[in-house]
């Protein structure tokens, strides 16, 4: 059975995202982009779940959850 790696990642609630870009600016791994000026999108391959984006998000809509890789 292949080993499952559980990693913490940032999840954006796109319904409430205002695409202000604060998370993108603060992400140390440049894992966040603003999708067509509508919402923030996280590249799960880069995200390590450091929660910097969640701390600065003015709408507090980024959650750090554990997910399988």
């Amino acid at each position: 059975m292949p080993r499952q790696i559980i990693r913490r990642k940032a999840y954006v609630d796109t319904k409430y995202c205002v695409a202000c870009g604060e998370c993108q600016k603060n992400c140390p791994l440049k894992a966040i982009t603003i999708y067509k000026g509508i919402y923030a999108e996280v590249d799960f391959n880069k995200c390590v779940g450091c929660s910097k984006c969640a701390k600065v998000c003015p709408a507090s809509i980024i959650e750090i959850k554990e997910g399988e890789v």
Partner: protein
Amino acid sequence: MKNISKKKWYDYLWIVTILYLVLGLFNILFAWLGLICFLVPLIISFTKYNKVYCNIYCGRGQLLNLMGTKFSRNKPIPKFLKTKWFRYGFLIFFLSMFINMLFNTYLVFNGTNNLREVITLIWTFKVPWKFNNLSNVTPWIAQFSFGFYSMMLTSTIIGIITMFLYKPRSWCVYCPMGTATQGICIIKNKLNEY
């Protein structure tokens, strides 16, 4: 993990925001420069279909961030402030106040009203502002300055209050310009789907 990226020229646009507010206090005609903050994000969202102005160039956002490092309570914003109803409702309210201000300017332009040297804060409190010598200025140009500066100062005050109460850039959640530019991007994206 520290973000060690070098600061660029646009990281200092918060100075422009402070300059704008200070210059406006000394000469109300500087208020006209605020149109840049209105037009640039709209032009960018209409032509490039993104929110790069909010993301990178917004001086007010940078200023709130900077002040927030010292003065913000860093609490989550109440849920109702981030609902579409509130955000678009606030945009409509802001636009109607803007149109009302344009109408007042028109009334001065056509001679119905005289120039009122007043700054209106939070759409309610009227502060007499007779420090400028506006005798050489066309009255409607001065009237627009008072109206526009009132709007800019009001939104800055609201931004600072929510910066203090919640997270530094809480203003961005319901900023009318941000809502408008995001709305434009959403509509453009939907049109592209068809």
